[in-house]
């Protein structure tokens, strides 16, 4: 077996897996703090990508904003979107799963199609901010952009952990997520914490999309496929668990890459889903384990 090809495949898998992981984090964090399964997460990812990329690609008044700046703008704008969406999600979170799903899916439809109306259904390719030539590390060819995606995602995930464990807001968020009622009794504004969670989840999704944009084709439909897989990854790791989301996302990505490279590219998606089903049958609460919330 060709080792360097295998490593290349794995790295590609980690790259895509990082994307899934960031999206899965959004699902798990929101589920944990609000008890909401947010099927609009894929659309939020798409919206966030556009929010950043349009500045970078000179689509806003011809300005060509440097990539890192565009990344930050995209994250911030999407975070604002997340805060606004908290109002909509509040009533949805109280509903039965079936209605919650459909309600968030409806929201996703609205976002997807608004962007089709604004930007057209045709997507576009994004120029890479880094040189295109693949780097060679230990005999393995890697695209610089892939490294950027993996590195950037890792930094964000570490940043998230630091925020949650070390800062006051982070700890307040965790308290609120564990038990709404007690947190509320302690003076923690639950709704604001939820808005913060959504802001972070949306921001991460935007980052994922902007980092991945030069690799992935950008168009308004990019959200639905990724959204579903991100959800599957979150469930695979255990819905509500942050390490679970990361593990699930990475695993899903690697599984996809390996099956695309070695088994059959056309059955890729099917195999990844199938493995998720099998894992859930064996350990119904996911790899790391489900974390639920005590709702008020």
């Amino acid at each position, binding site marked *: 077996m060709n080792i360097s090809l295998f490593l290349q495949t794995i790295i590609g898998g980690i790259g895509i897996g990082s994307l899934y992981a960031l999206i899965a984090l959004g699902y798990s964090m929101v589920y944990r703090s609000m008890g909401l*399964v947010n099927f609009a997460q894929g659309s939020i990812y798409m919206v966030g990508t556009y929010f950043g990329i349009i500045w970078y690609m000179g689509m806003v008044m011809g300005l060509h904003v440097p990539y890192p700046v565009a990344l930050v703008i995209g994250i911030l704008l999407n975070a604002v979107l997340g805060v606004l969406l908290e109002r*909509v999600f509040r*009533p*949805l979170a109280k*509903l*039965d*799963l*079936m*209605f*919650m*799903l*459909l*309600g968030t*899916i*409806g*929201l*996703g*439809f*609205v976002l*997807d*199609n*608004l962007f*089709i*109306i604004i930007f057209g259904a045709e997507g576009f390719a994004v120029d890479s901010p880094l040189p295109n030539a693949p780097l060679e590390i230990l005999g393995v060819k890697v695209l610089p952009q892939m490294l950027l995606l993996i590195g950037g995602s890792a930094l964000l995930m570490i940043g998230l952990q630091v925020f949650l464990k070390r800062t006051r807001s982070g700890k307040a968020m965790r308290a609120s997520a564990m038990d709404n009622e007690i947190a509320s009794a302690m003076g923690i504004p639950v709704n604001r914490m939820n808005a913060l969670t959504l802001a972070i989840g949306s921001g991460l999704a935007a980052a994922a999309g902007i980092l991945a944009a030069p690799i992935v084709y950008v168009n308004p439909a990019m959200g639905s496929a990724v959204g*579903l897989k991100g*959800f*599957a990854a979150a*469930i695979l790791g255990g*819905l509500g668990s942050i390490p679970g989301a990361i593990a699930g996302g990475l695993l899903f990505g690697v599984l996809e890459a390996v099956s695309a490279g070695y088994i*059959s590219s*056309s*059955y890729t*998606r*099917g195999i990844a*889903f*199938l493995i*998720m*089903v099998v894992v*859930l*049958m064996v350990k*119904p609460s996911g790899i790391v384990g489900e974390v639920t919330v005590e709702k008020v």
Partner: protein
Amino acid sequence: MSYPAAGSARKRLTIAKALALVVVGCVLLAFPFIAQNRYQVHIINMAGIYILISLGLNIAMGYAGQFNLAMGALWGVGAYTAAILNTKLGVPFWLNLPASMVVAGLMGAIVGLPSFKVRSHYLAIVTIGLGEVINIILVNEQRLTGGADGISRIQMPSLFGFPINTDERYYYLILAVVLLGFFVARQILRHRIGRSFRAIRDDCQAAKAMGVNTAYYQILAFVISAAYAGAAGALFAHLNTYISPDIFEFSSTLFIMTMTMVGGMGSLVGSIVGGLALPVLQEYLRVIRNWQLVVYGISIMIVVLFIPGGVMELMRRLKSSRSLRWLWSSHSEEETFQPEETNVPGN
């Protein structure tokens, strides 16, 4: 507790109901002649097919509480079974219909297996995932399914030599199957099976304590819903004469879920209402193209947030609202039940 005028009010109500049924029956039978053009009949034909799938989804999800989100894919399984049998082996529609139901039913059982181990959130994604797997197989098994190109030149059915080759004639076929499907569903859900389903949905543990073999009934719910989807698939394949995998993607499952919810999850009549309303509405909204889906999305959210029980709930609310009571009773006390009975001691 006597209501002097109750008798005549009730009689008026039954006469009104009977009259309404007769009118509806006439409209149903005469529809292809009333319709303005063939396209309208085709829309209603498609609505009929969707109603059938929606009935299936309602049985599994509305009554038994089982998240079967692979309905679109199961519809596809039914359609492809009929298509393959017909184009490769020349099997006629009348045999394909039961064949599709059986094959889809078996697939439904497989899709339903995880329901023993996995709870609702997870069951939802698992059935979506399994549905995806089915769809991917349909796209990839070129030799069997024609891959992304699909299967064409499926023959339209004929009844003892009388060809059912127009939308108008096909309408009666669909009407018959839908009516049959509706009444069979009603019959099944009326007695033991329906109660066991609802018991599982209300409280699975308590159901087990009452002797309900929950595993059996859960799989049964999946199989029955899949059989309905399968029948719809056969009907669709022979109507459209061409099928391709993209028709049965997850978006179709969403469409069916939406119509079932809008009509009223947990009510068979709701499936009919939703199954008729949504495809028809979709046609009217087609003019605004992309805004169509935005409107669609917003409407879903409104229904979910304000009228989760769908049209049937709306009707129930209207029925018990005081302002409209004059429509059907002269005595305002008649339809309210009084659950007082606070502390009635003894026998």
